[in-house]
């Protein structure tokens, strides 16, 4: 085994769609197993389907793996199998070391018990020993930071407090392998930062982490390798950036269709985007088509990192009025340093004098992946409402 943490060999899991059938299958399985027969779980019976199909991967100690994919692709099922909650129907899973799973925070809490009582209960359920809890008790209360409420029944907690306490217990487990299912998005900002800091501590101490998330930012932040599941199958696997880029491209190809038709409702459409980055210089090219003429056009391109707005790139008062036709606009941002991560650009065309009047909009016209942090200062201005505006040269031509 050596430094192997997790080994998954051709694992499949089947589910049943119908409740009544599921009952019958369940009782057959139990009967067969208790009589010492094999349950022939590798064969599909009536109304069953593979929720996970032939998944294989290996993870070494201290590695981090992200799992992404649309809803229903089998991410949580895989996590639950790694934790031993569900057992594979085909294949084999080998896990070395103590596993801590954060599938739902506070799952073992009893609403009638006080926070204090629940800490002991939940810790025991998560596999901690009495000594461990006694030792870490103060640290847990400290981390949760819910004040006097620690002696009130958990059912009187706000949902935030509930989660804080649950997370506080869970992160004190000191697992060798930590499985996390989409829970870092809970709690307020301060608590989230605390959670990430704690995660980093765990990572530094050599914990193997598997993170299931829809937040690409969280995945990028934590995971070196990423797996993309789709319909229970392993669609893609490799370096996080690459997998995410393909995954996003995938979503885009099915989402961007509706905006590509031009009609009365959408007099202006953005048809194409192109972005190039060399060091701290960014060249953004946008093509759009308009069926109406616009007097005071203002093109606003917003650079996003996940759901965080990095800066606006605006054409300002440089554009003269436009007649109907096709145009290509080029922004040249001279000095904008970006850190590792993946970005996308949304764009809108609106009236310069009346910002509430938007003619055309595209929520995600182009993606940008930054693999190396660029050096240097940002040439930025603060615009209205504190929005950061990147200085740029603009030029527009009719095509």
């Amino acid at each position, binding site marked *: 085994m050596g430094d192997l943490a997790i080994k998954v060999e051709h694992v499949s899991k089947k589910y049943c769609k119908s409740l009544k059938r599921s*009952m019958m299958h369940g009782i057959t399985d139990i009967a067969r*197993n208790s009589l010492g027969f094999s349950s022939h779980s590798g064969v599909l019976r009536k109304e069953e389907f593979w929720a996970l199909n032939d998944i294989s991967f290996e993870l070494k100690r201290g590695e981090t793996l992200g799992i992404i994919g649309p809803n229903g692709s089998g991410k949580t099922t895989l996590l639950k199998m790694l*934790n031993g909650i569900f057992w594979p129907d085909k294949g084999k899973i080998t896990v070395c070391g103590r596993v801590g799973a954060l599938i739902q925070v506070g799952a073992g809490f*009893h609403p009638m018990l006080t926070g204090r009582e629940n800490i002991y209960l939940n810790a025991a359920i998560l596999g901690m020993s009495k000594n461990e809890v006694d030792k870490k008790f103060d640290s847990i209360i400290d981390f949760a930071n819910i004040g006097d409420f620690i002696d009130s029944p958990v059912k009187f907690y706000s949902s935030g407090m509930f989660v804080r306490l649950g997370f506080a217990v869970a992160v004190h487990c000191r697992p060798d392998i930590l499985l996390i299912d989409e829970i870092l998005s809970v709690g307020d900002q301060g608590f989230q930062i605390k959670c990430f800091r704690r995660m980093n501590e765990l990572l530094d101490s050599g914990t193997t982490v598997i993170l299931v998330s829809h937040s690409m930012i969280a995945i990028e932040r934590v995971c070196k390798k990423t797996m993309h599941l789709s319909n229970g199958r392993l669609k893609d696997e490799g370096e996080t950036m690459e997998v995410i880029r393909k995954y996003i491209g995938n979503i885009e190809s099915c989402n961007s269709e509706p905006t590509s038709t031009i009609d009365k409702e959408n007099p202006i459409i953005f048809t194409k985007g192109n972005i190039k980055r060399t060091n701290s210089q960014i060249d953004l090219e946008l093509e759009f088509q308009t069926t109406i003429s616009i007097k005071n056009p203002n093109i606003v391109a917003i650079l996003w990192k996940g759901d965080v707005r990095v800066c606006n790139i605006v054409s300002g008062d440089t554009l003269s009025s436009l007649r109907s036709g096709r145009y290509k606009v080029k922004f040249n941002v001279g000095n904008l340093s970006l850190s590792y991560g993946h970005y996308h650009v949304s764009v809108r065309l609106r009236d310069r004098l009346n910002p509430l009047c938007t003619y055309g909009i595209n929520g995600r016209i182009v993606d940008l992946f930054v693999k190396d942090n660029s050096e240097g200062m940002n040439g930025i201005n603060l615009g209205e409402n504190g929005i950061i505006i990147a200085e740029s040269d603009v030029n527009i031509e009719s095509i």
Partner: protein
Amino acid sequence: MNLVQSKETMVTYEPDNSIKKGYLSIFKEIFNELKSNQWLCYQLFKRDFLTLYKQSFFGIVWVFIFPLVSVGTFLILKGSGIFTFGNIQVPYPLYAILGIAFWQLFATGLIATSNSLVKAGPMIVKINFSKKSLVIASFGQAIVSFIIQIVFLGILFIYYQHMPSIIILFLPVLVLPIILFSLGLGFILSLLNGIFRDIGNALSLLMTFCMLLTPVLYAKPVSGTFADLTNYNILYYLICVPRNILLMGIMNSKSDWTGFFISVVLSLVFFTSCLVIFHLTETRIAERV
């Protein structure tokens, strides 16, 4: 040090895992699991205990209400002449309440264990923990009620100035067979209840019926089909016989002794096989519960 320890633990999950390993290793696995989860078991028991009467006005008084109402009902039935108890040599309330204490240990224990997995369903699908500990812990409540009732009975013994047999010192040994029987059955029913909710619904109904069928509140009938039926009722030997020993010191008949010993052996075998079956199949329950 913790890290060094945990590095040695390696778990594999694959279909029909236990069958491949063979039956002998199963006993070792079960033993190790129960041993290493003692504290978890205690915590789960404490949870049940602390929460059972927490939002209740009468609280722990509920433990006494069931035996008092049952005994009261039978006293009324007797007073109106509908029902005769048969030949009982000790004060009836002592006989009945001790009998009900034993019965309750079996019945409430069985109902609690049977519902334990279903009740913890949301937790089972989110955290991997020892399900055996959960089932065992849920039996704890029945034991606590039993102890409380025995203390209450102590007062009754003084009131009626009746000395129980010296065998009462071996009470824990006497109740062990019925506990094992109930727990074993509970293991199986908790699994089945996870799949068919019918089990939980039918159980409380069935319990009342079984209690009337077992001579808990009346003396064992001397003749007739009912007497024959009682001769083959394992609950009679595990509940009524120990009760009679406690109250009267000796047993009425030799057949009771043999029946008692056979039942004790049966309950041990039954408990062990149920535990093994539970161990073999518990991995299937999370996806169905």
